[in-house]
């Protein structure tokens, strides 16, 4: 056996591991999948990746009187199966969530049942092997799978928002298991998300938003930007993503994860990222007549004409656009969001700070 290879565990070690895994299930610490038992020495390895105090409170849910400390974040990151050097990414993700989507009280408990999407930018993607190419939304890559999972375990264990009790999701979404992608900055024709938000390209950052699901979009047969973008906008605007239970029209947003092939076709025709967001926003919505047919006309739209276009988003900033996935087909994804572009909360992007910084 070459040096550095791990020796296969003994049967006795495996029996102990099984007992520890079952213990974690019995304590109610899991998301339904086995977790890595959080030995103190493992937690300490994670805490060693940051200069932040283990007792520092990262976020609080006031009405539940629950908080997550740096130590609790480390414990749940161990359980999620992260490696210690992922921990600064997770800390930045909690900061991003706490200052952004997490400020909308009660959202984590809502019947809507949304997931947190984590988008990683900058050099840390290569350093830690985050996947930004094929299968970004699928299983297979440890950083993507475990960082997204860590956030959900933090919500369940540290914040106490668990199914059947405080998490009231009617159905939820499988994205709640884990939804962490990295932007494919190398195949993108535009500036990456963190640069758009004011960070230097060689700074690493993470963005967190809440999304209701991820919806598949394809257009393989055109080189006309408008045809691709209208297809994406139509997919963003489906009737079921519109919440309408109040007198006033409720604004929404969307995370658009554009595949590199679509992005390159569009950019080749001279479209900037700003042009794309504006066009998508202009076509993100439905006419009043269509909304009436779906029974989703807000009372404050009564004076609008039947053919008036009712925007679902408040502005082009209701669209968060990233480029990710393989450059092998005309496929993109849209994720309806209640928090992208919402007034009164942060934009959900935080710098990843390494201990040596």
């Amino acid at each position, binding site marked *: 056996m070459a040096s550095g290879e791990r020796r296969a565990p003994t049967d006795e070690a495996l029996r102990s591991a099984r007992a520890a895994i079952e213990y974690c299930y019995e304590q109610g610490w899991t998301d339904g999948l086995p977790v890595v038992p959080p030995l103190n020495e493992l937690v300490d390895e994670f805490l060693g990746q940051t200069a932040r105090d283990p007792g520092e409170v990262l976020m609080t849910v006031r*009405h*539940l009187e629950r908080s997550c400390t740096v130590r609790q974040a480390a414990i749940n990151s161990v359980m999620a199966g992260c490696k210690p050097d992922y921990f600064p990414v997770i800390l930045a993700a909690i900061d991003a969530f706490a200052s952004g989507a997490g400020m909308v009280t009660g959202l984590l*408990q809502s019947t809507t049942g949304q997931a947190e999407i984590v988008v990683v930018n900058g050099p840390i993607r290569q350093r830690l092997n985050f996947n930004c190419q094929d299968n970004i939304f699928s299983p297979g890559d440890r950083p993507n799978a475990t960082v997204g999972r860590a956030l959900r375990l933090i919500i369940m264990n540290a914040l106490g928002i668990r199914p*059947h*009790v*405080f998490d*009231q999701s009617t159905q939820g979404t499988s994205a709640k298991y884990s939804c962490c992608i990295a932007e494919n900055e190398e195949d993108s024709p535009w500036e990456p998300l963190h640069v758009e938000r004011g960070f230097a390209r060689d700074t690493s950052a993470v963005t967190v938003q809440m999304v209701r699901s991820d919806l598949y979009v394809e257009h393989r047969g055109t080189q006309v930007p408008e045809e691709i973008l209208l297809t994406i906008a139509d997919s963003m605007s489906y009737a079921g993503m519109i919440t309408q239970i109040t007198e006033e029209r409720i604004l929404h947003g969307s995370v658009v994860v554009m595949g590199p092939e679509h992005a390159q076709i569009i950019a080749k025709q001279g479209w900037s990222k700003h042009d794309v967001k504006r066009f998508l926003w202009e076509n993100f919505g439905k006419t009043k007549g269509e909304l009436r047919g779906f029974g989703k006309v807000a009372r404050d739209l009564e004076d609008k004409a039947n053919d008036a276009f009712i925007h679902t988003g408040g502005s082009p900033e209701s669209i968060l656009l990233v480029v990710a996935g393989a450059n092998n087909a005309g496929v993109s994804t849209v994720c309806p969001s209640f928090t992208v572009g919402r007034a009164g909360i942060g934009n959900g992007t935080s710098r990843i700070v390494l201990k040596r910084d």
Partner: protein
Amino acid sequence: MADGTVFEKRGIPAAAIITHTFTASANAMAQRNGFPDYRYAMIPHPLSSLNPEQVKQRAHEVLPEILAILGIEEKARTVSAAAS
């Protein structure tokens, strides 16, 4: 549910109303806020899809329970019993 217990803690009488599908989270919330036996009013689910007439009907049906929670119904009965 959280609002009801917060009001009560501040000495402001409150009656919380839930639809019956939320009893698990309602009880958890009341327990969380230190009111394990918190009494709330319950109406049938759903509510958000009802028309205004149906909502009024629900309000009429739950009113006696709300008065009882606020202690008004008992007081009204005591006063009328003393007067007779």
